[in-house]
């Protein structure tokens, strides 16, 4: 499903810069289970985010998806208008989808101290201002992520009882960590917790499945061949191996070979310049 389709005329690469044709809606990257739960709660009117509009150089950004407008919008009112529309489309998506695929990406997040609102990027990076008295770093635990996903899925099931959930874990290692740990330790912690939560939910729920894209890409069997030279970005061959395995596994469930998307040939997912990721934005700001 694509509930916020690319406007006519916009070329694919430019469309991606505006958050189109990446996911089923223009929510940008959802890194954490808490961010996902928060989006669903907001879409169904059960949550109002705090400090949801950030400013930079006279332009205004949706703090919950700052990457979808590269140069921001003209006023806070326009940001709010766009978000209202976006949430209506997300609500429709959650109510009409048969299957939701969610890739668990991070445990680390930045939160608004008093309200608990979490953001995909640290305030003050893409936009906004970092005030340590207002925002804090938080590294989500197993229990928190497990709880967030349970709450999220319960909420969606109350609106869409037949919905099923497919979980995967991102094989992309952390570029940096705010935890104070070495980034290697932080990565292993993050991936271990996310993988454990996914496994727990899979074991406990008939309508939650787990697909091992993380294992396919990172396994010693792959000998690191699925990573680019930066040892972070996944090569096209890795994406193709994952998708081939996925469709092979689901063909018996009625999948048709001809309907399989040819990911590696048409979408160069693994090249840094084509991946829409806040990390890339942060890299740019760091230069």
């Amino acid at each position, binding site marked *: 499903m694509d509930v*916020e389709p690319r*406007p*006519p*005329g*916009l*070329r694919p690469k*430019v469309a991606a810069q*505006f958050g189109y044709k990446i996911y089923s809606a223009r929510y940008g990257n959802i890194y954490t289970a808490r961010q996902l739960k928060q989006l669903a709660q907001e879409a169904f009117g059960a949550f109002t985010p705090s400090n949801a509009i950030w400013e930079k150089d006279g332009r205004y950004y949706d703090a919950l998806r700052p990457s979808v*407008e*590269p*140069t*921001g*919008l*003209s*006023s806070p009112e*326009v940001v709010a*208008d*766009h978000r209202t*529309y976006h949430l209506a489309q997300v609500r429709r998506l959650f109510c009409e989808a048969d299957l939701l695929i969610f890739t668990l990406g991070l445990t680390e997040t930045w939160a608004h101290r008093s309200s608990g609102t979490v953001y995909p990027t640290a305030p003050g990076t893409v936009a906004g201002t970092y005030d340590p008295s207002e925002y804090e770093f938080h590294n989500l635990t197993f229990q928190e992520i497990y709880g967030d996903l349970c709450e999220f899925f319960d909420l969606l099931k109350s609106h869409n009882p037949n919905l099923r959930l497919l979980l995967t874990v991102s094989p992309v290692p952390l570029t940096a960590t705010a935890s104070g740990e070495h980034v290697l330790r932080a990565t292993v912690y993050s991936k271990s917790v996310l993988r454990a939560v996914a496994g727990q939910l899979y074991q406990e729920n008939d309508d939650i499945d787990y697909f091992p894209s993380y294992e396919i890409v990172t396994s010693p069997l792959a000998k690191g061949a699925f990573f680019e030279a930066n040892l972070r970005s996944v090569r096209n061959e890795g994406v193709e191996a994952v998708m081939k395995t996925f469709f092979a596994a689901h063909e018996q469930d009625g999948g048709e070979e001809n309907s399989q998307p040819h990911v590696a040939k048409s979408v160069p997912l693994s090249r840094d310049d084509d991946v829409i990721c806040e990390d890339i934005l942060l890299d740019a700001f760091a230069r």
Partner: protein
Amino acid sequence: MLSRANTPSFSLNRVCVIGDSHLAAVKLGWDAIRDDFPEVELHFFGAPADHMDNIVVAEGRLAAGSDMLRKFLVKTSGGLATIDNAYSTYLICGLRFGIAKIQRLCTEYRAEGHIRDDRAPISDPCFFKCVAAGLRDTFAVRTFLKLREITDAPVTIMHMPMPSDQDTDSALARVSASVDGVLIRQAFMAASEQLARELGFSLAVQPQDTLSSHLRTKAMYALGSMKLVHGLTESHQSDDYGHMNGEYGSLVLRSWLRSS
């Protein structure tokens, strides 16, 4: 007064006019005013836009890439099947370069300053990129790029006329009648001019006095518009709001010739 993105003064002795169905108005207009420009020769090459996109570069000329296009070129030019580089200037008419190209964008999406209705909201930068990309992806621009392979002579793109204001029912007509009309026109003109500067062509803009509003042509200029494919002998249906008549053609052509 014709406005143009860049305004080099160039010789108009031999003008090659390439276009689609909108060429009919220009041809009829030329027939009406040619005596006022005795030093100018206009040579017409026309075909429906879909066919004109089959034009190819071959041996330093533009040639038909299909039998059907060849027939159209021969018929409209009076016997010539190819376009050479011997003309002093080239005028491209229509070929989808117009507001119709962004009709879906304008009726399904709204930019920041547009009326807040049930269209999908998009940012002004995104809206502008869509307009510019839509205009770039036209047969007119593709034809221009092919011309550039055979000649450095000046090229002007004359955009399609705005639709007649007799159209009051279409989605675009409703948008045009609202305050969005002025913003859409601004985006259309800015994107057209940016494209002209970037690629190096001139832009012939519809004369102001033929417009009844920002995106509408006065109905009188659509009355009796003729079809190109039937040898300028058969008129369009009365519910055709996109094509203009010879009177319009003479106005837009005279404006362009005088400003060049």
